């Protein structure tokens, strides 16, 4: 069975595992700060155009966004369980759960694409382009949807990346390249997915829930 071996410059396996984990956390900290720019754009423009933002949020479909939240949380739950089962040595269930997470990612991407399609059909495009803005010429609407497309677009790219990563992990577990002693690797891939989940837990209220309640 192939297992992670101790690299020569580490003192012991425990340190090597810690290094990998710490490295992933630092990377995720960096990723968080990458999204930070978009959070700041949202906060800044929301303070500048509170009424427009509440109006614009009503044009996002709340229940689709909520389903997507539930899907991502389910994926997050699956991958946490998968890593734990792998540590117990139950390889098959770990593979299935990891694939479930990847499937959740695919579902998310599909639903998000449908949402984008609906926006385009309503004439909402990034950059203040489209017939929607003739009915709503207020500047807050333009900047809201530009930031919406940029933020959710970047997030959906991250979800797609997670799908690839976890499918690959499932293959590795199946091929015996990651076993109980290397379970920390699945844990590290899982960290990425949890991070993507956490970002969406904030994007969901920002872009779906905090609207004007006109309907």
């Amino acid at each position, binding site marked *: 069975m192939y*297992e992670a071996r101790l690299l020569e410059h580490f003192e012991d*396996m*425990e340190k090597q*595992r*810690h290094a990998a*984990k*710490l490295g992933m*956390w*630092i990377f*995720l*900290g960096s990723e*968080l*700060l990458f*999204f*930070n720019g978009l*959070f*700041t754009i949202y*906060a*800044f423009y*929301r*303070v*500048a155009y509170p009424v427009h933002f509440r109006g614009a949020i009503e044009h996002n479909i*709340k229940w689709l966004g*909520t389903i997507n*939240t*539930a899907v991502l*949380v*389910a994926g*997050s*739950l699956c*991958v*946490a*369980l998968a890593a*734990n*089962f792998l*540590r*117990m040595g139950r390889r098959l269930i770990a593979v299935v759960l990891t694939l479930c997470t990847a499937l959740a990612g695919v579902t998310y991407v599909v639903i998000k694409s449908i949402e984008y399609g609906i926006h385009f059909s309503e004439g909402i495009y990034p950059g203040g382009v489209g017939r929607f803005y003739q009915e709503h010429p207020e500047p807050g609407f333009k900047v809201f949807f530009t930031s919406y497309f940029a933020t959710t677009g970047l997030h959906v790219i991250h979800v797609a990346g997670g799908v690839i990563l976890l499918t690959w992990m499932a293959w590795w577990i199946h091929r015996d390249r990651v076993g*109980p*002693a290397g*379970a*920390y690797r699945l*844990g590290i891939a*899982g*960290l990425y997915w*949890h*991070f993507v*989940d*956490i970002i969406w*837990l*904030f994007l*969901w*209220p920002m872009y*779906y*829930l*905090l*609207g004007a*309640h006109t309907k």
Partner: protein
Amino acid sequence: MSTEEPVSSWLFLKVGLVIYALLILSFVLSYIEMGRWATPIALVIAGVQTVLVAYFSMELFLSRFSVRMLAIIAPLFVILLVCIAASDIATRDPEPMLVPLPTVEGSGGPPERIRGTHGVPMLGPTEPARPAIEGTLPPP
């Protein structure tokens, strides 16, 4: 070769249930008009969900001090940038740093809404014109 110790799978399931409960709570609350409280309440619920995901699913409860510190520090910098940038636009004067337009004869003073910082005209029409910069500026 050491292996990490597994924990009970029920732990993750329980945490998952709590996160779903909060998700439903947040969804229901979004239909209630709460005015200015809506944003902080929604963000606090998201924050609690995040803490649950980070502490249990991301296994901070099993992690070393250095990892935990990182998980605390990085969000602080997000809060820092978001809050300071938003406080700028929130505390800005309506027309910041705007120099009142020079008045056309007979139109009588600058419009009411144009004012400099703290409502004081910054370069009013009554002030003497600045002396021209010395030296010669060659033609471009």
